[in-house]
């Protein structure tokens, strides 16, 4: 049974997965156990994406199925789900840029790989990053941007983090369609990634996981 949900989700069988969850809940199965299986299924999805067996539509679809499962399970939950997290990451698309697809994929991949992600959304001013770093104590910051204008926004954000006295407390990664090693140097970030999995690898390396 448990394995069924893990596989159904991992294989993107929406109807089957939802039926397993409904049947399970009807039969009095522990809601937290169902969520745990769903998490295992999502880990397989993330792994297949990292291995280039799955592509962006598969991530989007699995996220959608997970949302439906969570909605089914939520009313039955008595205690909050306790999940052990590897570490915290503050992430957002920099000021002036409202593109979110790339950022959302990185958030998704960090999440299924065990990180607690503070997604600040798009067009995020530098101060908002700083406030969230202070509040959360996150050691990792991710800056996303699609337009060439984002290069300067990223640079300004890194400088603002420095001016706030936080630069030695956080590692900064950047990513987006036109981001390269040269842009990493230009912005003063610590690293860049050209796909979502590179972001996960960097985050894991930085927290020593």
């Amino acid at each position: 049974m448990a394995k069924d949900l893990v596989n159904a989700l991992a294989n993107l069988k929406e109807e089957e997965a939802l039926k397993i969850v409904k049947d399970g809940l009807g039969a009095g199965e522990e809601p937290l156990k169902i969520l745990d299986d769903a998490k295992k299924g999502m880990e397989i999805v993330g792994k297949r994406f990292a291995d280039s067996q799955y592509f962006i539509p598969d991530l989007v679809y699995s996220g959608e199925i997970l949302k439906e499962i969570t909605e089914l399970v939520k009313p039955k939950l008595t205690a909050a789900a306790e999940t052990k997290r590897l570490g915290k990451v503050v992430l957002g698309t920099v000021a002036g840029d409202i593109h979110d697809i790339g950022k959302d994929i990185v958030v998704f991949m960090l999440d299924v790989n065990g990180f607690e992600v503070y997604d600040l959304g798009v067009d995020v001013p530098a101060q908002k990053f700083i406030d969230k770093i202070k509040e959360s104590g996150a050691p990792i910051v991710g800056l996303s941007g699609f337009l060439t204008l984002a290069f300067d926004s990223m640079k300004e954000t890194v400088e603002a983090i420095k001016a706030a006295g936080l630069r030695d407390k956080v590692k900064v990664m950047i990513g987006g369609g036109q981001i390269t090693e040269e842009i990493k140097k230009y912005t003063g970030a610590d690293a860049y990634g050209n796909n979502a999995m590179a972001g996960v690898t960097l985050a894991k390396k930085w927290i020593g996981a």
Partner: protein
Amino acid sequence: MEKKWEELTPDEKQEALFNRWLSPKDPQGNDLKFQSPQTEKAYKERLARIKDAIQMKKLPDRVPVFVAPSFFPVYYAGITPKESMYDYDKCCMAFKKFVIDFEPDGNLGAYVPGPGKFFDTLDYKLYSWPGHGVAPEQSYQCNEGEYMKADEYDALIDDPSNFFSNIYLPRVFGALEGFKMLPMLPGILEIYGVAVNFIPFGLPPVQATYKALFEAGAEALKWIGAMGAWNAEITAAGFPIIAAGFTKAPFDVIGDTLRGTRSIMLDMYRQPDKLLEAMDRLTPLMIKMGVGTAQMAGHPLMFMPLHKGADGFLSDEQFKKFYWPTFRKVMMGLIAEGAVPMPAAEGHWTTRLEVVQDLPKGKTLWMIDQSDMVKAKKTLGKVACLFGNVPSDLLVVGTPQQVKDYVKNLIDTAGKGGGFIVSNGAFFDQAKAENVHAMVDTTKEYGVYK
């Protein structure tokens, strides 16, 4: 006796459109007067160079060079994107300065900013633009959304025009709310009851919508007047404008601005047949749109911005099933009428190259961004002229020497045997002017075919 258009072969039609491009008209429809015999000669030489590169029949005198920016000319001229959208004189000044200063063989006209007041009047929801959702010094950006709902495929398939007028347009233009009440036109048949169909036009919301439309139409006309004058001036100065209009791949039509990225991805799993049917329905319309513009403008090149087909956005299998078939049909439809599809493969398309090379030779012009150029030349490059690949990051933070080295290497790799045009790979806002100069000048010096 001259053959009628219908009697021409696709090759002859393409030649006829190239000839019309070679003999430009002024906005009044008369033969354009060039500034001087020198600028006329320069125009014809540039165009011949571009044509030879595209047709791949004979080697051009040298590798042509395009500069295809987004808002770069605006920043370069020291004005803001907002000013360029609300003051057409300033917009034209900026794009003119850009063309005159950089002297590319091909440029994209001054269309990028578009008419700000027009967007205001119609309360355009699909984009945020400078002063209206983004800061005055930034470019406009798309607000993706589900402007078509998951259960509306049948409405689109049954009657695309009605779907657009009564459902889609009121969602993306706040001022077109009244269109929701428009009558079904095929119901207008005979005297008995005919007036009933016209009742909506008497209602205040519909009248308000038409009032906004008249205003917006007047503004659009003012803007296109400025663009027409600009085109004439720049052409007269010897610089060809490389695209007459645009059309799109049906998957992008639905995925970009109707269903949105997330939703079309879900549709591939949940309602694949509806999605395929809708794309089939849109295919002839996208052909008609491109062919119509090419005919009207007397210009073969038809821009096709590509989005959702890039590496990673679809699996290989999904690309072959959902993206490529109707995209190819649109291109073949344009080619049959003499137009030259100009798809822009922004981002990475390396894994798609083998699939998309299934095209007749010398009939398309592909903008390549970050795809592997060696592979591109060996695959798609065998049948199609490629342009682009000079990276945005290099133009922004690189040095002229780095740009020079990059362009030389690019010419060595992709320029061999013709069928290649140097250009930036993605539409850019920022760049160092000296780097753009380096891209153009290196091509002119190093790209000469011996």
